[in-house]
């Protein structure tokens, strides 16, 4: 998608050393040729921008004309001493440029929606919309498809955070290290192709056959259709309804609601939703409380979703590793897991259906994403090459003996213990027998 830049300079190689060991020189070169546009400069955008700038993307452009006096407090890129009349985009650009001088960081004038013009979009490889309403996401998704620009959207609200990806048609490689029987490792590279569904398809598809109990409630909240058969409720309307509940509470009580005010909120919800003609049963009780604090985002969740989005952006422009297709959902209300959902659900028998999952081109038809991946514990900071030399044959003999004894501990327990046990039992039995006869 992007034109790879020339060779890495020596300085770049020194700074990028650790990440070159993760994704290699080729990906780094592709990254440095990519142009990324980020619209909306809240806490989430700050996280993603920081991540892609550090990674060494060629150019990053920010769009948000909110003055610093009214900025989101979770944007850590805006320093405390910034004059109030600069826009958040400009203030963030200054910090980002200092973070990595190899990246061209710039700000475009105008509000975030100013990017929704084909002429603007065509100058970039990728657009990321941060904390924008659903209507704008839908609009941007259509325009990006027309302009051939990869599209990402991310939203963090209260204890929820999610990201949506639409890379249209995306080619990528997966590199696997395989351990050979003789102990050496070999690299195995496979090429894949994935096609993505549009936002429209992803939020209006049928959920037939989906196990609702294990399905992400957050997706339902995004989609605005909370339970099967309940009245459809668009994201914006839901937000308005929730805000109406919360603001009415604040008017009545003269304070911000807390978790302890559940009953009162519930009563208010019935009342307000009734007035607005919305089915109150559509909203799980707890979600309401979480939204009581709707106005703020949690920096911790910004970091989690922003880190994931950073990874996804790097995968998208680097063309390496399987990207998220097409939702990443993180909700503290659902156990703090980061779930990947593909919607509409791929039909296993019909790969030609719109928005089907990654098809493997070169590999045998073992479907990606169908292979269960076991939990893998990170070995605390031991690199694959962690090493130390064992002393010479006669050095440190007691330690070696202890080491071997420890290794053979199970063998000792299972092989020697029964023998000793039986011998002991026999002698004890003989003794008892003797005593028994004596008396």
């Amino acid at each position, binding site marked *: 998608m992007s034109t790879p830049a020339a060779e890495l300079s020596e300085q770049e190689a020194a700074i990028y050393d650790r990440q070159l060991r993760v994704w290699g020189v080729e990906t780094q070169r592709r990254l440095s040729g990519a142009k990324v546009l980020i619209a909306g400069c809240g806490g989430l955008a700050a996280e993603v921008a920081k991540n892609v700038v550090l990674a060494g993307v060629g150019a990053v452009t920010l769009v948000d004309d909110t003055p610093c006096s009214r900025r989101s407090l979770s944007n850590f890129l805006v320093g405390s001493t910034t004059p109030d009349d600069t826009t958040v985009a400009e203030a963030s650009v200054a910090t980002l440029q200092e973070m990595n001088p190899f990246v061209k960081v710039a700000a475009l004038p105008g509000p975030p929606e100013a990017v929704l013009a084909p002429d603007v979009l065509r100058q970039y490889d990728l657009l990321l919309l941060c904390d924008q309403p659903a209507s704008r996401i839908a609009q941007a998704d259509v325009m990006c498809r027309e302009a051939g620009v990869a599209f990402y959207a991310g939203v963090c609200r209260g204890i929820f955070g999610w990201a949506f990806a639409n890379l249209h048609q995306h080619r990528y490689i997966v590199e696997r290290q395989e351990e050979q029987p003789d102990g050496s490792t070999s690299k195995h590279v496979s090429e894949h192709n994935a096609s993505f569904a549009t936002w429209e398809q992803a939020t209006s598809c049928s959920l037939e056959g989906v196990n609702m109990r294990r399905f992400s409630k957050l997706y339902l909240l995004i989609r605005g259709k909370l339970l099967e058969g309940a009245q459809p409720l668009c994201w914006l309307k839901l937000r308005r309804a929730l805000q109406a509940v919360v603001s009415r509470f604040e008017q009545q009580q003269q304070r911000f609601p807390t978790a*302890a005010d559940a009953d009162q909120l519930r009563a208010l919800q019935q009342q307000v939703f009734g007035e607005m003609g919305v089915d109150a049963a559509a909203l799980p009780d707890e979600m309401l409380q979480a939204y009581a604090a709707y106005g703020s985002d949690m920096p911790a969740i910004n970091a989690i979703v922003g880190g994931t989005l950073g990874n996804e952006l790097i995968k998208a422009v680097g063309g390496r590793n399987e990207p998220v297709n097409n939702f990443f959902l993180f909700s503290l209300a659902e156990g703090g897991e980061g779930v990947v959902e593909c919607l509409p659900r791929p039909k296993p028998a019909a790969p030609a259906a719109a928005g089907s999952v990654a098809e493997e081109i070169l590999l045998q038809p073992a479907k990606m994403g169908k292979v269960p991946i076991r939990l893998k514990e990170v070995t605390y900071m031991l690199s694959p090459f962690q*090493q130390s*030399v064992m002393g010479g044959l006669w050095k440190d003999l007691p330690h070696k003996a202890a080491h071997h004894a420890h290794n053979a501990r199970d063998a000792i327990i299972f092989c020697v213990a029964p023998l000793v046990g039986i011998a002991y039992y026999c002698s004890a039995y003989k003794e008892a027998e003797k005593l028994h006869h004596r008396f």
Partner: protein
Amino acid sequence: MGRDKTLSSGTAPPDTLHTAGSSQDVLAWPWAATGEELKQRVQDVKVLAVGAGGIGCELLKTLVMSGFKHIEVVDLDTIETSNLNRQFLFRKRHVGKSKALVAAEAVKQMRPDIDITAYQGNVNESRFDVDFFRRFDCVLNGLDNLEARRHINRLCLAAEVPLVESGTAGYLGQVSVHIKGRTECFECQPKPTSKTFPVCTLRNTPDKPIHCVVWAKEMLFPLLFGAPEASDLHEAPPAGSGIDAAAVTRNIADDPSCYQRAEGESSTHFAERMFRHLYCTKINELRNMEDLWRSRRPPQALDLDALRMPAYGDGGDQPAAIEAGVPATASSACKELGLSDAHSVWNDQQNAAVFLRAVALFLDGRSHELGSAQFDKDDLLAVELVTAAANLRATCFGISRQSLFETKGMAGNIIHAIATTNAIVSGLIVVEAMKLLARSFASCQTSFLQVSGSKRLVSRMSAPEPSAACMVCSTAQARLVLNANKMSLQQLVDKVLKGRLALIAPSLWCGTFSYEEGEGLEEDEITRNRKLLLLPLAQLPGGGVVHNSILHVDDQEQCFKAQLIITHREDWDDEQHPEGFYLGGDLPPALTEPSVEAAISETASPNEDVVSLTSDDDGVAAEAAARPVAKRKAIEGNTDSSKRPRT
């Protein structure tokens, strides 16, 4: 569960939310995450961030943004260029400065109203003792090595401070919570130890690239430039140590002095002599030991003259510096030779040229380091030398060669690291810290970051229970406050060990000092003990029992083991603590007192003088209390049955 409790227990008026007592309330997680009550707690607590590196930078940022106001940070390291790709609080101009100080300064810029203290130091230092840790409500780890993690784990256990532990490598990462008595401690699960290679494989029969790299780094490098005794390359085992080994090593062992530069020998000449010695003489010696090569391919010696780079072959085009033996000032052999791509694999000629040039450059340009040089992954010349030496050896043994970049990673134990993983992990750490503040211990979890393509990029597992077999956390630990200058050993034994801990025949040791009681002691031991008992604790032999000493107490008869961490206090208030000591911690309550059941049932005892079982599950406490009883019964049972012969 926790949520129901809060919801049903009515509502506290908002203006009294941050009074002292309320900080013990269990909040409804996750709904409280954005609530005012938790926000207030976040502002009030004091947290310790250990490490200001990859995870540390992200963590400090996330903490400050989340509203944490009182933060302390410890880090020993200084900033390096290769940190700048992910440790985003640092700039190029900061290279060489303390990570902790620069990071603290940077986050202070983000939120000037925070109170942050930075320490540049090793967490193993004595100033970071149990008392230091006890000041915090929560300890958050962003470390890069196992030793420091273990140390912090033990201190947190001793100080009874909850610990959030984390680690990342490439795209993978994990965050876990360790609360004493409630979840497993960091050392409950065995941790992988570093990989070791048998020295004979390295010396005689390497078969992987890493063997050659370790040989070059650990054996050859110290032999040429460092302290020769640090190398195992020329070591000979003592005589009569088995026939095979002796036969093998008689050939291999050689005089270390041949690796020293002779009087008047030029550096270029020395390099060539080393090349011939290592890759021709030694390889041929090995090849002659036919026992080794029955099932392996024998090594091939290298011929230096055949490997000279064409340009240098006749010596005509050789750089003047090499010919004339002029002291070289260049720091890189590759640059001189025009090998700029760190990712390409050199051929044998290039390897030979780099080896010769690097040895010569080291001898000429850095003669002051000779005899004490140590391998450092950021030392370009050393990495070049190791790469070339390892590759030449790999050629001899028919192993694949590695690029400079790869070799640097292997020799330097470099951990793959990217900013995104650290950011996600920092978010997960702060989420866990907020759960701890909400006192919602049941929702604490271990989170794992998974490789891309997984159905769950962040997966979870509820925090496991502590392992009873853990050497670190299952041994009871307690804090013993006393005046070490006043209290005698006799008082310690009678009042604390026998009176409070209900030991029958206590034995104790502290450093080199030990004391034992019970049957079967010799006459002279009893007289020695009598003298010792009268001494104040601080004057006992072996440095005495003083502030921060760890007193190991055990009672063989009860199978009881505990560690008492001594806190010395001079200004002792006899009225408040008439017994002359104060004991806190998770030890089982004294058995001599009839109120064992009472002590268990009233868990959160406000009177700390009573051995408290606060915040423990009833079941755990009961089990701990019951342990000595059960043991004693079992002993009685045994003696009974042994006295009564079967008829």
